[in-house]
């Protein structure tokens, strides 16, 4: 973009040094936990004097953490399984209706994700309290689904826009009803986008913290809730091990999505 100014070397150096610093700022907290997780010591020394896997053993050996892991994975899976079909249907609806109606639907679907989590959390808490459902996973699940639907839509809407609607018309003219046209023509061709949407919805649930902190309790605690509690109490390198594992999983998932999207 700035190749019209090859002579401004100094400006370029200043700009890129600044950019490098900002990028370091962005990556530092994610990367710093990795060596700590392999430390043999209780202290947060950097670089660690000795290395071990004791914090990983600690994590996998803890019934509490394992229960939270199971809860989070179950919640993420259920969220994705509900949110993605809902999102697909809405996207087809928006794609076909177009204009103001589609824009309205889209902004309604987006509203929960710009509403502060704390409001959704206490509101859901009140609603659940009135139904005597506090402590069950139901509230967390609907909360996660409502946040995952727009995320899935972000992936699916452009994919549908690229989709050649003539194929649906062709299928219809050849005798297919709507259910067959959606299930037999649209779904197989959106496979990659549907997979991406599923993974993103899963990650959205996995990472969601505020609703979990307020609504998930006891043996229904999620990973973010337990991490939040332990960060408030004391800093234990077990969290570093969990963070490292988590980041690795996320990076792998994002890479899968990115590579699949490209091919």
């Amino acid at each position, binding site marked *: 973009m700035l190749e019209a100014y090859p002579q401004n070397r100094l400006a370029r150096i200043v700009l890129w040094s600044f950019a490098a610093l900002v990028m370091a700022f962005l990556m530092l907290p994610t990367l710093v936990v990795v060596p700590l997780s392999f430390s043999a010591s209780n202290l947060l020394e950097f670089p660690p004097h000795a290395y071990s896997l004791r914090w990983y053993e600690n994590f996998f050996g803890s019934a509490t953490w394992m229960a939270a892991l199971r809860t989070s994975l179950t919640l993420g899976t259920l969220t994705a399984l509900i949110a993605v079909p809902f999102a697909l249907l809405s996207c087809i609806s928006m794609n076909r209706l177009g204009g103001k109606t589609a824009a309205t639907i889209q902004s309604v679907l987006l509203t929960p994700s710009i509403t502060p989590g704390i409001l959704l959390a206490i509101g859901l808490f009140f609603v659940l309290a009135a139904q005597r459902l506090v402590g069950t996973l139901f509230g967390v699940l609907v909360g996660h689904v409502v946040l995952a639907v727009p995320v899935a839509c972000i992936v699916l809407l452009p994919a549908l826009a690229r989709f050649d609607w*003539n194929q649906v*018309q*062709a299928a219809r*003219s*050849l005798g297919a009803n709507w259910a067959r046209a959606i299930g037999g*023509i649209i779904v197989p061709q959106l496979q990659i986008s549907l997979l991406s949407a599923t993974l993103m919805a899963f990650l959205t649930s996995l990472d969601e913290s505020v609703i979990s902190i307020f609504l998930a309790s006891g043996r229904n605690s999620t990973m973010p809730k337990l991490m939040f509690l332990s960060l408030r109490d004391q800093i234990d390198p077990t969290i570093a091990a969990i963070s490292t594992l988590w980041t690795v999983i996320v990076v792998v998932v994002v890479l899968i999505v990115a590579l699949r999207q490209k091919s």
Partner: protein
Amino acid sequence: MKSLPITIDSVSRAYGSYVALDDVSLDIQAGEFLTLLGPSGSGKTTLLMALAGFVRPDSGKLLLGDRDITRLAPNKRDIGIVFQNYALFPYMNVLANVAYPLALRKTPRAEARQRALAALARVKLDGLAERNVAALSGGQRQRVALARAIVFEPRVMLMDEPLSALDKNLRETMQYEIRRLHDDLAITTIYVTHDQREALIMSDRIAVMNSGRIQQIDTPQRIYDRPSTRFVAEFMGEANIVAPGSVRRIDGAEASRETLMIRAESFHLDAKLVGEDGVALEGILRAKAFRGENWLLTLALDGGQEVLVCIPAALASGCAKLAAGQRMTAYAPAAKVHAIPGAMA
């Protein structure tokens, strides 16, 4: 398989203030090959999509045989459609694409396979059944789309500019083959194109459309030689619309008082080739251009109007010597002079 006639009865469709179809009525006979011809935005594709069931008319009726299909869902109409971009299913192979409508109709697998293969053979694609759709050339995809549209023996076939994506040579081959397929199956076909040559070559009848209306519907020859409106005359080729006063009869009889249409290629430079009842136009040569098979001369009539004159190269020995600014006369035989009622030049 018995093909059916189609009746389009006062169909209208507006998008906001834009009128796509303006009270269109049209009868298509069973087994006929009818072309909807017009520029883009003339309503021809909208009319086709209304027949297919993808565009809902605001008013009017569509009949297939005696059956009213105006409100019938597209998947219940049994109409074969070839889309402009073919709309093949990319994740199915050729055979699966062609067998798809049969699978929807719960045809037994073996029979479906056999019928699909027969349809592929009909469009000369034997041996490509297992091929991936992505591996096909444009012409082959066109044939797969044709096979898929005929395999379930629809009573009517609709084609939306099916050849527009192909190069010129392939297009000419396919024009011939689509017409042959129509003749073999004797299936009522409505074909949409904006290419007037294609329409002339392929059709039993042509309906010329403009601004959502049918301007004229007739055989290709009559559409070309006897256009009923100025729009049709000009859309079908190099037409000169000449005001009554600019023309005189060669035999001195009184000339017509109507606006006349004379095609550029109807002219001769030699009065003897035209006959006594022909007409003569006099003017000054403005420009000339050699176009290979013919010469194109631009003649400015005394009234100031410009007329295009096209002389076949074989008869144009004198053309090379003509110079701009020179006064000259062009002649046209009476049979090629067509009055357009009501059209002012």
